[in-house]
Structures are given as structure tokens and as C-alpha cells.
């Protein structure tokens, strides 16, 4: 699903990625590990289509509507409620049966009770859960998740475990993490950044 050959990315004079080769087959689960600043985030942003590589080739067999991305920022509007945020993204992705799907996801991630509260009032953990709802809302085939367990409490982490397990069979995953042990059972492949 993702094929990269000689992928490089530089920001100004800083080379973040250099001549990287990568393959993620359809239905695969690539686990990316490495210290902070090693280029994991840049790689994931490129694969999600948010950054263009400065060198090499990249083929992604999915268009924007089929990619779900979770980055370091939750990408939700603080002045809008959880429901309004998801409604916005639902409309932008032209999600069928939008309201039902939003309700289901909010419930799955334990946010139904706070659906009418402004995102600005949410804790970091709740924002992360909302961000996960946003990433999964349009039922993407390819999931690009950058440290999805960040800021999640035990309950949240358990909800995410359950969600990932249920989605695992049908989707392709590219996940960066600081805690590889947790996701190792799901992974089909690993990539370690120095």
C-alpha cells in the first residue's frame, strides 16, 4: 500500500530523512520506533500527505479520503464542541450516516457525556480521544498514527487497544510509538530510527 524508495526530506539545512526505503503491504502493520527528533513524525506526515519529500519516490495506494491521520496536535477547534468538531470533519469527508457514526465513535471512546462541551475545556487525554475519533470517523483504509497513546490514561489506553484490535484485520497501519511492547502483538513489521 505504501512504497517508498530513497525517500529524503530536509527542512532548510537539516536533513531529517535520508534515502529511506520502505514497504507497507495492504493489511500490514508497520511499527516505527526511535528517539525524539529521529524523523518518525516527518515520515508519518509525508505518508499522510501533509509534507512533500525533497527526494526519492513515494507511492501510496490510497487517496486522501481513505487516510486517517493522528499527529501530535489533536486538530480540533477549541471553540467548537466535540460534536461540532466531528460534524465538521464528517461533512468534509462526506461520511455517510454521519450522525450515527459520530455518536458511535463518541460512545466507543467514552466522550458521549461531554459531546456538547467545547473542546477547549477538555483535558489532554480527552483531546487525544477526540482526535482518535476524528482520525477514524471516515473509516479510513490506511491509518497513520503518531504516538497514539500519548496523554491517554489507563482507561483511554484500554479503549484504544480494543479499537485497534477490532480494526486490525481490515486496515493498513503505520504507527509510531515510544512503547513498542504494547503494539508488538499487532505489528507485522518494524522500522527503527537511529
Amino acid at each position, binding site marked *: 500500500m505504501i512504497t517508498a524508495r530513497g525517500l529524503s526530506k*530536509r527542512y*532548510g*539545512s537539516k536533513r531529517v530523512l535520508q534515502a529511506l526505503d520502505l514497504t507497507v503491504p495492504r493489511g500490514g502493520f508497520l511499527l516505527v520506533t526511535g528517539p525524539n527528533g529521529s524523523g518518525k513524525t516527518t515520515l508519518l506526515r509525508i505518508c499522510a500527505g501533509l509534507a512533500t519529500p*525533497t527526494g526519492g519516490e513515494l507511492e501510496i495506494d490510497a487517496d486522501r479520503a481513505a487516510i486517517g491521520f493522528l499527529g501530535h496536535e489533536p486538530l480540533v477547534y477549541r471553540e467548537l464542541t466535540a460534536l461540532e468538531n466531528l460534524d465538521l470533519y464528517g461533512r468534509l469527508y462526506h461520511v455517510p450516516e454521519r450522525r450515527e457514526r459520530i455518536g458511535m465513535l463518541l460512545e466507543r471512546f467514552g466522550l458521549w457525556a461531554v459531546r456538547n462541551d467545547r473542546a477547549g475545556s477538555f483535558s489532554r487525554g480527552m483531546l487525544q480521544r477526540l482526535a482518535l475519533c476524528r482520525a477514524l470517523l471516515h473509516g479510513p483504509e490506511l491509518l497513520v498514527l503518531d504516538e497514539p497513546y500519548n496523554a491517554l490514561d489507563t482507561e483511554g489506553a484500554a479503549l484504544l487497544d480494543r479499537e485497534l484490535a477490532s480494526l486490525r484485520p481490515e486496515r493498513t497501519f503505520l504507527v509510531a510509538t515510544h512503547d513498542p511492547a504494547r503494539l508488538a502483538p499487532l505489528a507485522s513489521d518494524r522500522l527503527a530510527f537511529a
Partner: protein
Amino acid sequence: MSTWLRNNQLIALAGGAAGLVSAAVALIFFYAPVDRDGLNQKIFYFHVPIAFTAYVCFGWGAWKALRHLWKRSPGADLESYVAIHQGVIFGALTLATGSLWAKVRWGHWWVWSERQLVLFLVLFLFYSAYFMLRFSIEEGPQRANICAVYAIFGVVLIPISILAIRLAENFIHPIAFNKHGPQMATSQFATFCVALAAMLVLAGALYRLELAGKRLDAQLRELREALA
């Protein structure tokens, strides 16, 4: 001879520029007949070719910008930047010679009724902002794209500004000054042409020079990184 020319374009251009500029200066000061305007006329021989050259530079910069966005031509971004840089230099010279001309002709260092000068002032502001824009963004594909879009906006702004300045004259200044430029006899026209050619070749030489310098910088940087 022609192979040498091809391989040493920069030297050829520089030589050509030196020759033409000397010829132009000689013609301007010793050959072209002095008409009643005197010094005013001499400045004209510098001012108009410099202005024309500046336009050519901006146009070239916009063309390269288009090539960058449309064809993803490698190196087009750098060429666009260098062309605009030259354009701003010649633009500043246009304003300087134009101001001198206004002082000699009308006794003021600036006259708002001179359409060309006003246009150049607006363009100078616009393209100066180009540099502020370029140097406040990190190098990369996004910076190249943004600068290219801005360069194209610049050339579109030229005709719009010309129209605006023309329209503004109705309510800003009644048209008081004699508008027509100096009439040109053959010897004057010949001098003008040489001066124009001199400026264009000079701009070309400076363009090539700066481009060569910047490319060398880039290569050096790449080597350093490869060794690091």
C-alpha cells in the same frame, strides 16, 4: 570560437557588458547631440534602458516562477530569485536616475506626475517585500512555491498598477507637466539602442554571475553534508 563562447558564457557576457557599457557611455557623452534639454537628455539615456531592463528582469523572474510551479523545473526557483534580485537592483537604479532626472528637469527630487516613477515605486515596494518573504521562510519546496506565486502576482500587478496610476491622475493631480519624452533624431536613437543593449547585457552578466555563485554555494553545502 563558438565552442569557447558556449563554455565560457559568463566571461563572454561580462566582456560583452564591459564593452557595450563603455561604448554607451562614450556615445552618450561624446557622440549624441546635445539638445536644448542638455543634461536631462543624458540622464534619459541611462534611465529608460535601466527601467526597461528592470521590467525584463521581473518578467524573467515570473517566467521562471511559472516554470517552477508548472513543470517543476529543478533550479527554476533559484533562477527566479536571482532574476528578481537583479530586477530590484535595477529598479533602485531606475528610481535614483529617475529622481535625478526629475530634479534636473523640473527642479524637484520627486514628481508624482511621472507615471513611470510612481509605478516603479510601487513595484519596488512589492519586490522588496519578496525578499522579506523569502528570508523569513525555511528553505524547502514550500518556500519555493510561495515565492513563485508571489513573483507571478508581481507581473500581474504591473498592468493593474499602470491602470490605477492613470486613473488616479484624475483626482490627484491635474496633468500639468509636458508629457512627451525627448524626440529622437537618428544619432540619438542609435545611442539609445546601444545604451539599452548595454544595460540588458550587463543585467545578463550580473544574473549569470550571481546564479553561478549561488549554485556553487549550494554544491558546497551538499558536499559538506555528505562529508559530515
